[in-house]
């Protein structure tokens, strides 16, 4: 048996991640799977842009109540993520840039506005969002 200690050196590896949510929350598993990945990203203190496009904007709509369909209301988890983001923004020792973005065209098509979401969002038009997307190092889509 070897008594060699294995050391994992992961310190300092920070990448720009984008999470692209394009599916409504409860009809398919995509939304929940992306959320799991977002939480892992937070644990490793990576940079993250969490983006909601198309029906993905419905994931963070206010007033969700899933009691009668026997599914977990995970919109609340985005509320916690937003709180963690605020903490990270205020903590000078923490190098973790997080943004929560909704695409302007998607919310307008659905008759929604920035006030309709459970978290504070940046509303960004597609042309500018395309630029932000192109700057990312890793993109995880659902």
């Amino acid at each position, binding site marked *: 048996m070897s008594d060699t200690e294995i050391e994992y050196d992961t310190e300092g590896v920070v990448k720009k991640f984008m999470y*692209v949510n*394009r599916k409504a929350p409860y009809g398919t598993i*995509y939304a929940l799977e992306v959320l799991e990945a977002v939480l892992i990203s937070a644990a490793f203190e990576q940079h993250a842009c969490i983006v909601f*496009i198309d029906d993905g904007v419905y994931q963070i709509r206010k007033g969700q109540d899933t009691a009668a369909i026997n599914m977990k209301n995970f919109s609340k988890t985005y509320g916690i993520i937003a709180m963690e983001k605020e903490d990270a923004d205020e903590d000078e020792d923490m190098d973790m840039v997080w943004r929560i973005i909704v695409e302007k065209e998607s919310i307008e098509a659905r008759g929604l506005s920035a006030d309709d979401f459970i978290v504070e969002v940046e509303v960004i038009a597609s042309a500018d969002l*395309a*630029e932000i*997307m192109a700057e990312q190092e890793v*993109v995880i889509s659902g």
Partner: protein
Amino acid sequence: MIHTVNKSPFERNSLDSCLRLSLKGSPILLLEDGVYAATSGTSVSDKIAGAAKDHPMYVMGPDLQARGITEDEVIDGITVVDYGGFVDLVVEHGTVQSWL
């Protein structure tokens, strides 16, 4: 960055969202059911032909073949690639955004 679309344009809006949110000049690869967008003579052909002027457009040959679409039916300006070609595109362009 390279964009991939794997849904039929007649069933989903994945291709429209891809075209709205991709920078001019960034390549787009159509694969799986996304290859239906590459065929000429459809209600979306003109849109795709227009997009092919702004983006290098590729389509997966094995997915065309599986669906009975011949290369003659592919819109002019779209390049047919195989799996090796897909790998080359990813190596060249780095980050992948999959429009699912």
